[in-house]
């Protein structure tokens, strides 16, 4: 795992001091709320419906036990004893007092953490593949490149007042587990003629105008990675729309001027910037790489005793093949039946920290699906691990099932929401668990957003639900056929919306259509793609 040196620590400390000073000037009346708002946002502080929310950055979703424990302690000390893992691999606290914010930031800084650029119109925390460095199917570990980008994007002097927020994801596998093409910039590390390079996808996003990022460059040499990213950002900073907040994301610019014209401008800027010598020295990447070197894996048993059916089910559903055949990556589900997706109590976080220390070389990952991964678990240890998880309510065997849904905080917390997401998620998981249908459905990604800003990724759901306000009443629109993975697609709306009970019925009906029509090993998504919308519509509306 990456460790700060004195320079990194100094940068974070400087920011904590800067924020303390900003808070002081706000209190002295030297800063108006309008002036202070973007500054606190860039330090991760939002004002929600009932309280402040603080969002903590977890760079590329990787953290160690000490950091997870610190997050648990903050949850207990300053929040209501829990935290919420987000779709960008971060953690947010929903019940923070403004006067505690500087102290929390100082507590975070002690364990090399911060809330820098987790909000605001700047480059946000860089996200990545949650199985990075562990999975059998990657070219290289993408995190050294993400770390290089983290440094570059932190306190970038030119790109702190962008037209709108800016999200970057980096992967290095043909399997996309980071919704890479639904980011402002998606980077895939690829190999060409024996050389590694970066493939750039620009202009993806969800929100009210979902777009899949087109590829603008199939290979950027790694010693030009930062320069190319800088060119992409400069064109956006100069020409991204600023007249309308809802048209200000880079996807709109790329869409309006066209991929080819945007690419032409980027290439021209890139050519210019190459002469400016802004790329970090190549040695920097070489310095970063060893932090992500493999831990000392040991050979051991490669199979488990499957005599306990509950354990066998968890193994089948919640483990991912590792590059070392005596290990797996184990997914800790934060989607207990009837629970709040992505929430963990302080106690659970401390347990996960302890288990990471015991079973996973002191390392944890946050998934964009709001679960936690222990990346390197010995197959021999799986039963012990599962036993402890299960006892703590963390053993739900439901990864990538209909119960493993993404849901935004919705109207229970968020001031932007039109409808509640959490109660819907809870009712759906309870219903499918009770009927035993979850298992029959296999991989089925359900994603729920409480408003058109799409924080719950409903556009990318095999089944998506969008909460809207219809004449003062919560109404839910259903969509089908989305995917955030390597087979990326945007979901299409089925037709008129439903009330809360109605949309749950509707989910039931579309899953029945699937079970009825599926062929062979087809997933819900595959069946939908083969048979199209019509049979689903018929079941829903006729």
């Amino acid at each position, binding site marked *: 795992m990456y460790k700060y040196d004195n320079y990194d620590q100094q*940068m974070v400390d400087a920011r904590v001091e800067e924020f303390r000073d900003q808070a002081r000037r706000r209190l002295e009346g*030297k800063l108006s709320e309008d002036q202070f708002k973007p500054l606190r946002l860039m330090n991760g502080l939002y004002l929600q419906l009932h309280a402040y929310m603080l969002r903590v950055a977890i760079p590329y979703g990787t953290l160690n036990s000490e950091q997870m424990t610190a997050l648990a302690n903050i949850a207990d000390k300053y929040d209501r004893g829990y935290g919420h893992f987000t779709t960008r691999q971060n953690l947010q606290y929903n019940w923070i007092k403004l006067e505690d914010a500087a102290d929390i930031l100082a507590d975070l800084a002690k364990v090399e953490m911060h809330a820098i650029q987790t909000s605001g119109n700047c480059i946000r925390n860089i996200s990545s593949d949650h199985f990075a460095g562990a999975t059998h199917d990657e070219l290289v570990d993408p995190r050294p490149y993400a770390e290089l980008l983290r440094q570059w994007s932190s306190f970038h002097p*030119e790109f702190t*007042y962008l037209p709108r927020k800016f999200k970057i994801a980096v992967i290095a596998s043909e399997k996309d587990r980071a919704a890479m093409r639904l980011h402002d910039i998606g980077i895939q590390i690829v190999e060409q003629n024996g050389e590694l390079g970066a493939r750039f996808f620009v202009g993806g996003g969800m929100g009210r105008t979902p777009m899949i990022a087109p590829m603008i460059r199939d290979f950027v040499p790694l010693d030009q990675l930062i320069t190319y990213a800088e060119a992409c950002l400069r064109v956006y900073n*100069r020409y991204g729309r600023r007249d309308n907040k809802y048209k200000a994301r880079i996807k709109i610019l790329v869409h309006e001027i066209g991929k080819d014209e945007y690419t032409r401008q980027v290439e021209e800027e890139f050519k210019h910037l190459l002469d400016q010598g*802004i790329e970090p*020295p190549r*040695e920097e990447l070489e*310095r970063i790489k060893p932090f992500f070197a493999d831990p000392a894996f040991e050979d051991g048993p490669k199979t488990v005793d499957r005599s306990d059916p509950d354990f066998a089910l968890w193994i089948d559903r919640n483990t991912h093949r590792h590059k070392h055949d005596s290990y797996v990556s184990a997914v800790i589900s934060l989607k207990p039946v009837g629970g709040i997706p992505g929430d963990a109590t302080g106690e659970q976080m401390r347990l996960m920290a302890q288990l990471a220390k015991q079973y996973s070389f002191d390392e944890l990952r946050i998934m964009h699906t709001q679960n936690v991964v222990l990346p390197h678990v010995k197959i021999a240890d799986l039963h012990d691990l599962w036993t402890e998880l299960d006892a703590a309510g963390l053993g739900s065997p439901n990864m990538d099932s209909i119960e493993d849904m993404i849901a935004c905080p919705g109207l229970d917390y968020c001031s932007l929401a039109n409808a509640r997401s959490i109660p819907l998620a809870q009712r759906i998981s309870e219903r499918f668990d009770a009927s035993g249908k979850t298992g029959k459905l296999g991989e089925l990604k359900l994603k729920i957003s409480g408003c058109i800003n799409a924080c719950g990724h409903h556009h990318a759901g095999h089944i998506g639900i969008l909460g809207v306000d219809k004449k003062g009443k919560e109404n839910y629109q259903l969509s089908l056929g989305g995917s955030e993975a390597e087979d990326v697609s945007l979901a299409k709306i089925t037709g008129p919306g439903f009330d809360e009970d109605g949309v749950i019925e509707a989910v039931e009906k579309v899953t029945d259509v699937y079970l009825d029509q599926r062929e062979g090993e087809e997933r819900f998504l595959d069946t939908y793609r083969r048979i199209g919308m019509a049979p689903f519509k018929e079941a829903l509306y006729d």
Partner: protein
Amino acid sequence: MQFRFRDDEVVDHGTVTVDACCDQTNATAVRIEPGDDARELLPFLDRLALVEVNFPTFGDGRGYSAARILREAGYTGELRAVGDVGIDQLSHMLRCGFDAFAPDKPLDESDARRAFATWENVYQSAADGRKTIQELRHE
């Protein structure tokens, strides 16, 4: 003008617009608005002594790119940030090549001094010519 990090004489006459500057062969001071393309000035850099970059609202960050573009092209005259310039923008503006600051509302001097010195070291190469942290690590 409240802060200036230059020793040469202050240009005290008015500025012209970018369009006017391109048409007029003798203008020595120009003002860039957020929507202007700073690159239109590149043929005239030799005769310019002052470029003002206007920030009508501090949240519009186009002026940061304009400043760097001019410095990258070799402009050595005064680069002045004017308009809605606050304490919390100063450190980044300095990094992007601004060397003079004329905020609409005068800023607290000691707050500003502290702000200019926010970053003891920096992660990115920009227009201030500072060595980056990555360069310092590998010296």
